[in-house]
């Protein structure tokens, strides 16, 4: 077992004239979680399909758990678990039947497989629904079963393609907790997501991809630093105070503030941290400018994403193109 559970070099995948992956490199250290973050159509699913032996790259090569995905596909398949984008549990089988079947296809005996299924159903709080046909499951239950299904054979490397897409916030949080326990056991995880908070919450490393290219990588802190530091944000109670307040903020930070009249907000970068907020508060009070909100804003991964790609991740145009690409993928 190498230090890197997943190693990919210059993966290229084209679908006709569309380049889904334009030569990406990936390294996932053993026992860590890496999130591949990107909008629809960025190439996330394509990358996962190549690494899980479902699709062949046009160029480049990759190893998973030390085995070449192209020439040693079977060895790779023995060691991985894949939760595809849409939960792929069999709708006509019960939860238990699904898990037992997958266990048997992972070359377990029927008895061992049944035992493992019972274990997993309990662990994922599905025991009550175990003997019901999964077409009647809720979205969250189906995802949990799908995740349980990937763990049947205790994989070394787990691939989760947008594990929480389409889940309501509560089901999402529940799934995160489940993922935490997996990570604690030392399973290597590669997950893809469109949600920045999810990447930040779950992953050690984040790889941002857009249009088949890696555009940034690092942990959440490093990525945020790429966008710059903290910002002081003031929201004045009365739009008429904007010019006065802007002068004060400019004086405190020494930078040119960005003013948004619609939200009555003034934002300016600062390197002084909380001290800038304290000074600004004192000066605004002295000038008798009523303020609704005064805060030190740290850049979110959304800011990172917007800065790096120069586009919003869910703009309508972008999404349409993306859906078309994902569909052709």
């Amino acid at each position, binding site marked *: 077992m190498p230090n890197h559970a997943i190693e990919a070099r210059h993966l290229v995948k084209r679908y006709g004239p569309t380049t889904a992956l334009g030569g990406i490199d990936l390294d996932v250290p053993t026992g860590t979680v890496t999130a591949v973050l990107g909008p629809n159509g960025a190439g996330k699913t394509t990358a996962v399909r190549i690494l899980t032996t479902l699709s062949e790259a046009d160029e480049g090569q990759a190893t998973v758990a030390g085995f070449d995905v192209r020439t040693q596909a079977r060895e790779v398949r023995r060691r991985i678990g894949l939760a595809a984008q849409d939960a792929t549990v069999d709708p006509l089988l019960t939860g238990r039947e699904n898990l037992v*079947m997958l266990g048997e296809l992972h070359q377990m005996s029927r008895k061992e497989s049944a035992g493992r299924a019972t274990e997993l159903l309990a662990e994922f709080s599905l025991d009550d629904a175990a003997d019901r046909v999964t077409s009647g499951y809720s979205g969250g239950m189906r995802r949990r079963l799908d995740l349980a299904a990937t763990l049947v054979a205790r994989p070394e490397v787990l691939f989760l393609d947008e594990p929480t897409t389409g889940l309501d916030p509560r089901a999402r949080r529940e799934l995160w907790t489940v993922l935490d326990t997996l990570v604690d*056991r030392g*399973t290597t995880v590669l997950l893809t997501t469109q949600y920045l908070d999810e990447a930040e919450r779950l992953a050690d490393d984040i790889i941002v991809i857009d249009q088949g290219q890696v555009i940034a990588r690092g942990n959440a802190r490093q990525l945020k630093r790429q966008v710059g530091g903290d910002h002081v944000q003031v929201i004045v109670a009365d739009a008429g105070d904007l010019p006065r307040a802007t002068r004060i903020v400019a004086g405190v930070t020494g930078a040119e503030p960005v003013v948004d009249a619609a939200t009555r907000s003034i934002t300016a970068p600062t390197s002084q941290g909380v001290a800038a907020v304290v000074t600004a508060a004192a000066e605004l009070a002295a000038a008798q400018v009523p303020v609704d909100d005064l805060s030190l804003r740290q850049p979110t991964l959304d800011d990172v994403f917007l800065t790096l790609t120069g586009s919003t991740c869910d703009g309508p145009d972008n999404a349409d193109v993306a859906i078309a690409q994902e569909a052709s993928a």
Partner: protein
Amino acid sequence: MTLTTTTTTTTPKPGPPTAAPPGAPAAESLRPPRGVFHDTWVIARRGLVHMKRQPEQLSDATIQPIMFVVMFAYVFGGAIAVPGGGSYREFLMGGIFAQTIVFTAFGVALSLAHDRKNQAVDRFRSLPIARGAVLGGHAVASLLKTLLPIILMSLCGLLIGWRIRDGLANAVVGYLLLIGFAFAMIWVGVLLGSLVATPEGVTGIAFGVLFPVTFVASTFVPTSTMPGVLRVIAEWNPVTTLSDAVRVQFGNPNAPPAPGDPWSIAHPMAYSIIWMVLIVAVCAPLAVRAYQRSITK
């Protein structure tokens, strides 16, 4: 890479030796392959459960043939005479058996299309299963599924006066021919299911192609009643010879051989077997290739 190196190195962080937590990657997760027959049977069992849970998917093998029996035996049957005499209802059953068997292709194609729609294909492909097990599983399940309509149609036939009249041995040969032809039709189904993208498309093509093929034949009426070109097509249609061969094996009434008959009509059993072999020889390799292409996008 040996199992030992795998065990020692899957521990992510070096530290004091502790018992592996449940669910941690372990060497025991690497099991030797149990072989293609095991994997095929596991996937075939899934197909049989599907059949049990979704009986409406079986309508082409249950309701539909019964409907045809009722329609032809009681609605049109009175107006149809079997050349050479004998009961039309007994003549009809051979055709119903043949039609049901031809529709085997539809069931296979439909389950393949559903698998692709539900992404079951991807799930299977990410598992360490033997090559060919998925298609093999579908084939085995379909073959077992054809036993149901064969039994059902036999019972239905008995109710309306159909009988096995030429001894058990011949009847067994007749049933084996049906099962053999069903096996051939499975590959037609795999080909269809791999080339057509959606379950809806499969249904459309099945009804657009399979119905004419089973109607321009001696399935419901003797070919001698058909006009010129249609009659020639029917005489060389393997559905005709399959129906005729089954009638012969069961000792049921059939159009008597005439001096001017083409070879197919004179030797229905041999001609049907030739088709069966041809279909398997041509369709199976094409089907496997089309299937592979349909799943590796």
